[in-house]
C-alpha cells in the first residue's frame, strides 16, 4: 500500500516538476519573441500602412445577441478605427430586444435586399440593412443560431478578403486593426492572427475607448489580470513562435476569408468554436502541405470585461474547458501524429496532458501527497519539495510574465500598480489556481459525460457572454 502511495506521490511531484521546466522554457521563448517584437516596433512601417491604398481591406464581423444597451456605442467605436479601408457587418442573431431598432435609428438604416454567398450554410436571414450615412456599415438580421452561426453569416456577406471576428462587448483600441494586420501585411501566407486581450475592469472608458489604464478594485478581477498576462504574453506568444498557436481569442481575431470558407466556417455544434476553427485551419493547411502561419501580435489590441462574480467566472472557465476538450476530441486524429509536425506530436499532446488532464492531476496531487506523508510513505523532504514545486513554480511563472510586460509594454505605469500585481501573482497560487482547477475539472467531466446544453445555450445567447476570450493556456 505504501508502495502505491509513494509511487502516486512521485508521479504528482514529477508532474509538477515537468510542468515547471516546460513553463520556464516557454517563458524564455516568449521573452525572445516579445523583445524582438518590441524592437521591431522601432522600424515597423505603421504610419505608411495607414496611409497606403495598397493595404488589404478588412471586413469586421460583429455578432450580436440582445445587445441593445451597448451596440450603438460599439459600432461607433468600430467605425472610428484607424484603417485605410474596411467595412463593418453587424449580425443580429435573432435578438429579441431593440438591438436592430437602436441601430436603425442611430445609423439611419434602410432595408435593402442583399445577395449573400452560399459558402457556409447558416440559419435563415430575415432582413438586411444598409446605412445611408455610413456606406461601410451593414446590418443583417437572422434567425437565432448561435455565435458561430452568426459569424458564418457575416463571412457569407463579407466583401473583403480578410475578416475580423469580434465580440460585441470587446473594446478595441483605435490602432487595433492596423497593429493586428501587420503580420498579414508582411507575409501574405498568414492564415490567422490573434491579439492580446486585456481586462478592462478598473480602466477609464469613454465612448467605447479606454482612456486610462488601471487595475480593478475587485480581487477576483485582479487575479485574472495576472492570469491573462501569463496566458497571453507567455502562453500565446510562445506557441506562436513554435508555429503551433491553437487559440485565437473569440473576442478578436483576423482571418483570411478564403480559408475560413474552405474549411466550412466556425463550427456551430461546439462551445469552443474559436479554438476549433484555428485547429481546423492548421489541419487544412498541413494536410495540403501548404505553407502558412498562424500569428500572434503581442500588442494590446482589445479590452474585455472580466467576471467579478465567482459563479460567473466558474461557469466561464467550465465552458472554456469543455470547448477545449470537445475540440481536442474531435481532432483526435492529430494526437501524436507526425503528419501534423510539431503541432501534432508536441503541442496537441501538451494540451491533452497539461491542460485537459492537468487539473485532475493537480487537484489529486495535493491529497495524495498529504496522505502519503501522513502514512509515512514519503519523507518530509519530499513533502517540502512537492509544496515548493506546486506553489513556487506558479509564482515564478506569474512573476516572469509580469516582468515581460514591464520590459515591453509598461502599460501599468504606476509603481503601486506593479506592486499590487506582484502581490496577486503570489496570492494566486494559494486558492485561485486550485479553484480554477476545480472548475476546469468539472468542465472536463461535463464533456466526458456528454452533457448537452447546446440548445439551451443558444437560446439564451450564452455564446455571447462577456469575456469569451477562449481558455488561457498555462491555466
Amino acid at each position: 500500500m505504501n508502495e502505491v502511495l509513494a509511487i502516486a506521490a512521485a508521479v504528482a511531484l514529477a508532474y509538477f516538476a515537468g510542468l515547471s521546466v516546460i513553463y520556464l522554457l516557454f517563458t524564455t521563448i516568449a521573452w525572445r519573441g516579445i523583445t524582438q517584437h518590441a524592437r521591431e516596433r522601432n522600424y515597423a512601417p505603421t504610419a505608411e500602412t495607414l496611409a497606403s491604398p495598397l493595404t488589404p481591406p478588412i471586413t469586421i464581423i460583429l455578432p450580436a445577441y440582445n445587445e441593445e444597451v451597448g451596440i450603438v456605442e460599439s459600432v461607433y467605436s468600430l467605425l472610428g478605427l484607424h484603417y485605410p479601408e474596411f467595412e463593418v457587418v453587424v449580425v443580429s442573431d435573432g435578438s429579441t430586444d431593440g438591438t436592430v431598432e437602436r441601430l436603425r435609428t442611430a445609423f439611419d438604416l434602410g432595408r435593402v435586399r442583399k445577395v449573400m454567398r452560399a459558402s457556409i450554410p447558416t440559419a435563415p436571414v430575415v432582413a438586411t440593412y444598409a446605412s445611408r450615412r455610413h456606406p461601410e456599415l451593414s446590418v443583417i438580421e437572422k434567425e437565432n443560431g448561435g455565435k458561430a452561426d452568426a459569424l458564418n453569416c457575416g463571412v457569407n456577406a463579407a466583401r473583403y478578403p480578410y475578416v475580423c471576428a469580434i465580440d460585441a462587448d470587446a473594446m478595441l483600441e483605435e490602432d487595433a486593426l492596423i497593429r493586428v494586420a501587420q503580420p498579414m501585411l508582411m507575409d501574405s501566407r498568414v492564415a490567422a492572427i490573434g491579439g492580446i486581450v486585456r481586462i478592462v475592469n478598473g480602466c477609464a472608458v469613454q465612448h467605447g475607448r479606454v482612456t486610462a489604464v488601471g487595475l480593478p478594485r475587485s480581487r477576483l478581477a485582479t487575479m485574472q489580470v495576472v492570469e491573462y498576462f501569463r496566458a497571453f504574453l507567455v502562453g500565446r506568444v510562445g506557441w506562436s513562435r513554435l508555429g503551433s498557436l491553437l487559440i485565437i481569442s473569440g473576442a478578436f481575431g483576423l482571418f483570411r476569408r478564403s480559408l475560413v470558407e474552405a474549411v466550412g466556417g466556425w463550427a456551430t455544434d461546439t462551445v469552443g468554436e474559436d479554438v476549433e476553427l484555428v485547429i481546423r485551419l492548421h489541419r487544412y493547411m498541413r494536410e495540403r502541405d501548404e505553407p502558412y502561419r498562424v500569428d500572434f501580435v503581442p500588442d494590446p489590441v482589445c479590452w474585455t470585461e472580466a467576471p467579478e462574480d465567482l459563479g460567473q467566472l466558474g461557469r466561464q472557465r467550465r465552458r472554456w474547458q469543455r470547448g477545449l476538450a470537445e475540440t481536442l476530441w474531435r481532432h483526435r486524429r492529430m494526437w501524436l501524429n507526425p503528419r501534423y509536425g510539431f503541432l501534432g506530436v508536441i503541442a496537441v499532446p501538451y494540451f491533452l496532458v497539461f491542460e485537459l488532464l492537468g487539473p485532475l492531476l493537480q487537484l489529486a496531487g495535493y491529497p495524495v501527497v498529504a496522505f502519503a506523508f501522513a502514512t509515512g510513505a514519503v519523507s518530509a523532504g519530499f513533502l517540502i519539495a512537492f509544496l515548493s514545486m506546486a506553489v513556487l513554480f506558479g509564482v515564478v511563472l506569474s512573476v516572469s510574465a509580469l516582468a515581460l510586460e514591464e520590459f515591453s509594454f509598461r502599460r501599468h505605469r504606476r509603481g503601486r500598480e506593479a506592486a499590487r500585481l506582484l502581490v496577486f501573482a503570489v496570492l494566486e497560487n494559494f486558492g485561485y489556481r486550485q479553484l480554477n482547477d476545480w472548475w476546469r475539472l468539472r468542465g472536463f467531466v461535463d464533456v466526458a459525460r456528454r452533457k448537452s446544453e447546446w440548445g439551451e445555450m443558444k437560446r439564451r445567447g450564452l455564446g455571447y457572454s462577456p469575456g469569451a476570450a477562449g481558455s488561457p493556456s498555462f491555466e
Partner: protein
Amino acid sequence: MVAALTWLAVGLAMIGAFCVAVLALRRLALARGERKRVAAEGRLKPQALALLDGDPAAVGDLPPEDMPVVAGLLARYAHHLSGSERREIAIFFETHGGVDHELSHLRSRRAWRRATSAFLLGDMASPRAVQPLIHALDDADAAVRAAAARSLGRLAAPEAVEPLVYAHAAEKLPRTVAGQALLAVGAPALPPLRALLEAAEPGAREFAVELVGLLGDAGDSPAVVRRLADSSAEVRAKAARALGRLGARDGTAALTATLRDRIPFVRAAAAHALAAVGDREAAVPLLRLAAHDHFDPARAAGHAAARLDPAAVLRAAGSDAAGGHIEEAADLVVLRLP
C-alpha cells in the same frame, strides 16, 4: 531524486526572487533614465529646432555627451519632415558622422541592427545611402529588406524603383511595403515604372501597372489599356483597376470589352473600374453581367451600374429576369435617394 527535485524547487524560488529584484531595479533605472533623457531633450530642443530652421551653428559647440540626444531628437523629427528641414537634417547627420555610423551597421551580423540602420538611413536623408540600401533589398532577413524599402521610399530614389518592383515580384518584399516605398518616391518613379509595363516577368508587370494607376495621369491610359490584353490574368485585373484610378474616359471601350474576359476576377475588376471612370454608357453591359455572372463580378457590376445609371437599374429591377444582384443594386439606388 527527491533531493534533486528539492534543489530544483529552491532554484526556482531563487529565480523568482531574482526576477522580482530585476523587475524592481529595472523599473527604477528606466524611470531615472527616462527622466534624464526627457530633461536633456527639453534643454536641447530649442537648438535642434533652430538647426531645422537653417541654423546649424546652433548645435556647433555642444558638449559631446549632448550629441546623441540631439541626434535622437532629429531622427525622430525626421519621420515627419520633408523639404528644407529635411535637408538640414541630412547635412547634420552627414557632418557628424551619423550616416557613416549607420552605413557601417548595415553590415552588422545581427539582423535587428541591420534593420534599425536601414530604417534610420531613410530619416537621415543622405543620398549616399541609396546604393547600400538597394543592396540591402537582398538581405536574408525580411525585416531588414522591409526597412531598406521604406528608407528608399523616404529617400525618393528613382534608381530604386526597378529593384523594388523586382524584389516584390520575387516575393522578397510584401506588397504594402514595396508599394508604399514606390508611392513615396512619387512622380520620379513613373519613367522606370512605365518601362516595367513591358517587363518579361508577369509579377513585375502586374505591380508596375498598379502603381502607374496610382501615380500616373490620363496620359498613361493608352499604355495601361495595352495591358488589358496581357497574357496574365493578374496583370489584366490590375490594369483594369489602374484604369479606374486614372479615370480617363478613353479607357471605357477597352474596359467594357474586358467585361467579357474569361476569368471572373478580371471581369469584377473591370466592373469596379467602370464605376470609377463614370461613363454612363457602360451601364447596359454591366446590367447584363449583374444578371448572369458569378457572384463577385455580378455584385461588382450591379453596384457599378447603380452608380452610373440609377434609372436604368430601377427599370431592370422591374423585370422578371432581374436576379438578386440587380435587386440589391436597385435597393441601393432607392436608399441613396434624398
